[in-house]
């Protein structure tokens, strides 16, 4: 009970091994207003940003919904017979389209302006896991147990099936039409080559060494570096040119197989082409991919696994969402002084996060522990994903089938002030119009 009423929290925060609890009244938490949408009827898995004000969410109820951050629901895309696993937004002939891959082995193309299903692609023979667009050669690539290459009209260009019965989970597009594809513990490099006027996929090589467990994340850090992370907690840094492993972060040498993977990496968040935030088990860490140094280590950030990380609210906070149903906001508790920015090796984005700690302990010897500044709690189940909408707020989705938009209460209030003021001014004008019309009528 005491936990709920958030008493004696400060002592706990000091203890490294306990999960910090949030400060009373949360004066620094700007998200004091939420909008709750109950349009989904099952677990909401993913959110994808379309543009500054719109996003799409996919749910286990086999639907995808297009949202406007201010207006709410715009369209519901109904058509898949199994949950949607991956989504891709692209523009074709001035039309915004959304491609969705599903466990029902089809890809559907939706028109974001009309809400109609423009096309259904049924070439795949198994659950589709990943969809990417290869902009350099105007192709799409999708992964299931086979790898398919599509042209802009979703006509199949090439299909290969490298391993029987192994699902390919991630595709990362590198420069020079190269693709890194993850399947179980392996990373494989493909190249798209033009034979005559037909594109073909060709296996170049496997990236070695393999991960010990299945790969969970595959992200690009910069043009020269990308990262992969697996269930055992290891994060491998790869150079895009040589495709060799340059760093191994968070590596547990004495790793033993464990059924619930206590160090599993769920999410990687690349920052400033050099750093990467990793959601590891119930906490998160910040690594420098060049030096391999751990800059931040918050091993007990949540009561349950961290599912997603993002810098939000104009970089003011690091937000972490978790299966415990909360989004926590991390940053520097002290008042941030702007003078440190120039001297810091971090760019503006992270300077909020580190605050003055940066100046005093630069380079930091001990991994820095950020303070918990706020806790956003409204989901009654695990939060699967969330999306930063800048100063407007956050959109989060979770296992409770809700989609919640978190808004800055003060900002919203001020917006309302403006709207009302405008309408009152407009009324004044309108009144003059009325009078003049009366005058004419007379």
């Amino acid at each position: 009970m005491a936990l709920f009423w958030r008493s004696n929290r400060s002592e706990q925060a000091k203890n490294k091994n306990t999960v910090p609890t949030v400060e009373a009244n949360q004066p620094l938490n700007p998200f004091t207003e939420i909008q709750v949408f109950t349009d989904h009827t099952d677990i909401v898995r993913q959110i994808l940003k379309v543009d500054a004000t719109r996003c799409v969410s996919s749910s286990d109820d086999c639907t995808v919904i297009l949202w406007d951050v201010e207006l709410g629901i715009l369209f519901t895309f109904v058509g898949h017979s199994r949950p949607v696993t991956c989504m891709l937004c692209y523009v074709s002939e001035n039309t915004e389209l959304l491609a969705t891959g599903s466990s029902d082995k089809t890809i559907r193309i939706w028109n974001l302006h009309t809400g109609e299903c423009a096309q259904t692609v049924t070439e795949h023979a198994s659950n589709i896991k990943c969809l990417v667009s290869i902009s350099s050669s105007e192709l799409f690539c999708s992964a299931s147990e086979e790898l398919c290459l599509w042209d802009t009209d979703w006509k199949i260009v090439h299909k290969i099936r490298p391993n029987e019965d192994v699902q390919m989970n991630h595709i990362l597009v590198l420069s020079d039409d190269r693709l890194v594809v993850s399947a179980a513990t392996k990373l494989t490099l493909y190249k798209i080559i033009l034979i005559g006027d037909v594109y073909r996929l060709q296996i170049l090589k496997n990236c070695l060494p393999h991960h010990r467990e299945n790969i969970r994340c595959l992200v690009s850090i910069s043009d020269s570096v990308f990262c992969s992370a697996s269930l055992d907690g290891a994060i491998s840094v790869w150079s895009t040119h040589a495709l060799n492993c340059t760093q191994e972060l968070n590596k547990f040498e004495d790793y033993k197989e464990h059924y619930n993977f206590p160090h599993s990496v769920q999410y990687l968040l690349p920052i400033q082409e050099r750093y990467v935030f990793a959601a590891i088990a119930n906490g998160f860490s910040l690594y420098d991919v060049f030096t391999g140094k751990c800059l931040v280590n918050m091993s007990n950030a949540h009561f349950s696994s961290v599912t997603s990380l993002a810098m939000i609210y104009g970089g003011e906070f690091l937000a972490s969402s978790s299966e415990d149903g909360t989004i926590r906001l991390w940053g520097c508790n002290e008042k941030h002084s702007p003078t440190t920015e120039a001297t810091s090796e971090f760019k503006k984005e992270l300077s909020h996060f580190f605050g003055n700690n940066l100046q005093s302990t630069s380079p930091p010897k001990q991994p820095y522990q950020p303070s918990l500044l706020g806790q956003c709690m409204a989901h009654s189940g695990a939060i699967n994903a969330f999306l930063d909408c800048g100063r407007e707020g956050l959109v989060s989705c979770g296992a409770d089938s809700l989609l919640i938009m978190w808004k800055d209460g003060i900002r919203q209030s001020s917006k309302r002030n403006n709207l009302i003021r405008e309408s009152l001014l407009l009324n004044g004008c309108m009144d003059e119009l009325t009078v003049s019309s009366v005058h004419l009528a007379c």
Partner: protein
Amino acid sequence: MFAAGYSVSDDQMLNDVDDTENSHIPADLLPVFTPPNPWPISPNFENDFIMISEFCEIEGPNPLITIPSDGGGDFDKEQFAVNIMSVDYNATNSSRAANGVFTIYDDTCLLQEELSEGAHAYVHHFTLYDIHARGFVRPFCLAYITSEKNKLVVHFDKIINKFKKVTEAFKYGNSRNFCEDLKRKLKDLAFTKENHVSKLQYMATSETVDDIKTKTSYTRVMEELEKAIGETTQILNQFSTLKVNKRLERRFKKMDASENHRRQRVHSQSASLHGDGYHSEGSEMEKGFSIRKCQSNEILDSGHEASYQPKLIKVDGYRKFDVNLRSLQELCLWGAKIAMSKLKRFYKHFSRRSEALSMEKMESNIVKPASSLLTIGRTVTVNFIPENYVQCCKVPYHHPHQSSVCKTCNVDDRISLMTCSSTNTGGPLTDDEDVYSFLPSSFEAKFITGSDFASTESLYYDASDIPSIRDSSSDASSDFNEDWVEIMELSSQRSSSPNHDSGTCTDKHSNSNTSLGDGISGPQQTNGGVPQTMDDFILDKTQLYDSSDRDSLDVDSDMVHSDTEKPNPENNCINSQTSILVRCASGNSLDKFHVPSEPIQVPVGCYVSWLTSNSSRFPGCKLRKILNQYSFAIHLIYALFSGRTVIITGHLKHQKEIKHLITALCVFIPGHSSHSQIIPWYTKPITIADVGRLKLVGLAKEGSLHRVIPGVVRNYVSIFDFDKQVMYTPSYKGNYLQTLVAQCRLLRSDVSFLAYIQSVFLEMSSKAFLFYHAYCLADHNSKQSNEHFMNSAEEKSTINSFLARLGITDADSHIIMYWTELIKQQQLNSNSRFASFPLKSIRLDYRICSKFSSNPS
């Protein structure tokens, strides 16, 4: 002798005094001065009553009905009927009665005193038409009799309006009936004429003296016939020129239809009755009876009209007026039913104390627009931008040469404009905005069990009030009404694209103008365009009122429906000048935020209505006891005031106590939108979405607290565990509530305490008013927030320092900010132009809770 005589008389006088018998003393010797009775003569009746009387051509002035049926007590109704009916107001107008031409009379109304009885009366004369009556007229009179003169004087306009509406219903039913009778008579006459013509033709062949005699008499009969036909057609023409009250017409049709339906089942039995009545050429008595019979059965059937068989009638000769005339019900058909229900409703409202009526009248001035109205405990507190204020503000915008026009436009308000136009033209009165029906006539706390969401506001409905609440929707929909405007707003809100800008407003504006100009067509079209929206609208309403009692509703249940597509009957009769004025006036009203067309409409009233109601269970009753009983009451009120959902949870066995608690506490709920609902007893676990819409909930505790209040919700609500008498809520540190609670010990009764807390509400809401106008709407604010990177933290501190200057410290500032936010939200919700803000947002309250126990030990 002189002295002796004197002494005798003196003696006698003394005796007289003793015997109280001074009859033989000359009148001029009696003391002239009689001290006036300082007290008003106590009236012979306790409560107000309405009396309907008739100047019967057989019996003379005659009281017919009183409302309530036992109204009046010892009041001499017969005498009063004689008094009020002894003047023929219709005959005073010489032009009417001059040449014996049939005319349709207007109503006459006056205030009358009956000093001996200590009574004051509003008397309303009206005339009904009866084919069997002398001169076809049946003078009737409605009188509202009360001992409080002030009540009549202050609310004179309202009474006139209401009574006109009542007589309108009577007269509409009557004119329909009368026209049917006339048409039938016309057929009879034509038939008789035909008969005579054939007889004349037959007689033309024979030339006997006897025949010639009959022939001359026949020609005389023919002349009479012609004259009678002419007269009847002329009367019919007069009636046909009358404007038709579409609304009543529709209502009649509905009632006809339902009646027909009912009758079809018993048609076989009644069929035999129809047959004999028509052809019998018996005495007047019989004829009257037969017609009475036929009209009650058949007139309503338009199908039977064609099959009416004319009969021969006598045109010459004298009529005897010794027949029992038809009753009011028979004269007016459905009209009587409608009118009586209107009267009863009016009585129920108006028979209350005059203080309550005046207070309601005062507050009704600030009720509109409802979007900027701050209500606390569903009672009117302050309107942040009242209609009048907006008009005042607008005046400086006008150019000098237009000022005269503006003045006429802004003259008082639309109400006066409408009444004047309708009285001038003498057309049928349509229900204009009825303030009292906006305010339910009496608030009687009535819980309807079950946690059904639709019936949440049942708390505020007295079942018998429901018609009047329903009526409010219809009444408001009349004339230059906002109702269809409101609907339009709804529709545009649904159909509008996200980027609807100021264009919408202009659109609406021009729409309203054309529709007002074109008369009937405009509104109909508008409604025709959005039938579905309207249905939804009604559906929601009916859902809300589904707990109503049936018997009183059979009249009114169709009203909502019939009124929805109500066209504007008034427009035809307005001359050009008034129509311009009206157009302008309604244009003004359009500009403002209009009554929120939210699906859930919460009735808002005047607290005096509760306090003066006879019910012992008004909202807020036993409040003092509760404040004294629970030491943490102040924190509880703080939670309610600052918009934090308060959940009172307890075992099923405590249900009754919890409901009592909620009845008492609901006076502290600010706001009247669908975001601030009260549910006396809820049986499902609370979800995060509930936090947004519910403000005070009685929650059944099944098993543990964790089960019914999930952890997610728990952070944002205040919980009163009734079983353990423990409360978890943010603690209050401020001034206003301290004084409020302190006063509780000084005041002896709930009623006086409730009246007192209203003054606290007013003071606090005036601070919110200041904050709203001086900060939220101020210009400095707009510049600041236009910047893309608005700093919330800075904004927050500016707000706090501003509030501090108003003398509002930390805990109170939460309250003030919440109230202001409430108003802003209402305004945005009500305005379709802000399509970008229709979303319900839930405030997350991060204030930390403390645990309070009712037993300090």
